[in-house]
């Protein structure tokens, strides 16, 4: 389908984009467009205006900051896959990026756009949550850092303000991390995804498609911290979740997948 009509502005800087967003409360930011344009085409989203930040190349980088890695929000998935810093210091994120969509999608889609879209089925959302990522946003009042645990507030909803722009994602360097997802067909969304990472000696687990937002599997983490085996801890993976029944899977099947994938992820970790 053809999207409904909208106005279009290409921003030359983050500051200009913030100002443009301030002019129209129904305006939406356009980064790579690989979440937004499909929604426009289905007319699920009907913004009055798009503010295109897709050419802000200074928001494309992966920087080694010692104990953590800073990633510019407009870094394409494909660049994450190929980045030597990520490969060496946070292979989990590079691996998960390779499972997003397909090559064409990864050439255009961005990590910041994916996180800001706040899809509960997002691979990178679950991985960011397992890593306790910090998200940096810039708005009219300046810059703030948002812990990812406070970022996802509902389906396709984040704690970003109407004029705030996600500019950077900070993740810890981790040596051990696994992301597994089950999908019905190639390039489908995750029916369920499970991310597990050893962050500073503590195993952290997060789930995709198991509720209204990406979720931490806190029962699994607490069991592991208490000395439970991978299998015993993974059996708790669906606790506190609220998975949907939809065309891909029933709620019960998603709970089953979460337990199985969590066990496999912990065994591989």
């Amino acid at each position, binding site marked *: 389908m053809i999207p409904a009509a909208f106005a279009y502005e*290409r921003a030359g800087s983050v500051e200009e984009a913030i100002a443009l967003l301030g002019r129209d409360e129904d305006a939406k930011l356009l980064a790579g467009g690989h979440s937004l344009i*499909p929604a426009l085409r289905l007319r699920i989203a009907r913004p009055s205006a798009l503010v295109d930040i897709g050419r802000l190349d200074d928001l494309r980088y992966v920087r080694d900051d010692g104990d953590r890695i800073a990633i510019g929000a407009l870094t394409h998935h494909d660049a994450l896959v190929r980045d030597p810093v990520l490969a060496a210091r946070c292979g989990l994120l590079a691996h998960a990026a390779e499972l997003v969509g*397909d*090559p064409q999608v990864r050439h255009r889609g961005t990590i910041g756009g994916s996180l800001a879209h706040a899809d509960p089925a997002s691979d990178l959302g679950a991985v960011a949550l397992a890593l306790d990522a910090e998200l940096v946003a810039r708005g009219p009042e300046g810059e703030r850092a948002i812990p990812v645990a406070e970022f996802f507030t509902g389906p396709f909803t984040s704690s970003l303000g109407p004029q705030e722009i996600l500019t950077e994602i900070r993740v810890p360097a981790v040596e051990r991390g696994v992301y597994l997802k089950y999908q019905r067909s190639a*390039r489908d969304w995750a029916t369920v995804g499970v991310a597990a990472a050893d962050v500073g000696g503590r195993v952290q687990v997060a789930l995709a498609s198991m509720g209204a937002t990406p979720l931490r599997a806190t029962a699994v983490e607490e069991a592991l911290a208490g000395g439970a085996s991978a299998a015993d801890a993974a059996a708790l993976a669906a606790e506190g979740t609220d998975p949907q029944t939809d065309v891909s899977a029933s709620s019960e099947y998603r709970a089953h997948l979460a337990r199985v994938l969590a066990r496999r992820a912990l065994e591989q970790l």
Partner: protein
Amino acid sequence: MTSVAITVNGQLRDAEVEPRQLLVYFLRETLGLKGTNVGCDTSSCGACTVLMDGVSVKSCTVLAAQADGSAVTTIEALAEDGDLHVVQQAFHEHHALQCGYCTPGFVMATVSLLQENPNPSEGEIRQALEGNLCRCTGYHNIVRAVEAAARAGG
């Protein structure tokens, strides 16, 4: 309306477009380049794959306005002086198409793949083409064609 200047197949094209115009319709309807097909309309099937600034993209999921200042290559630009491109020749020789509807997208996705990875394994080829759907060939001949194109230096 918004102004765009897009280099398509080496030629700079200036146009006024509606902001909501998708790149694939700019190519097909504004420029008359109908080699690029629209298949699923939902960024799933890859029939509309073109190269944008050197890499494969689904032109049904890019606004023409986003392509302002970019270079776009479509299937029409691959053959030179009537000689098929190496990838096109390999698809022809290995019977990698039946109805041909998905073929321009597969060929462009293959060109992009071989630029990034000149010697892909069979597994890498199948992974790299996961964003393109074919309903006739069953994929095996497509994979053979891509292997042949790689051997021929495609």
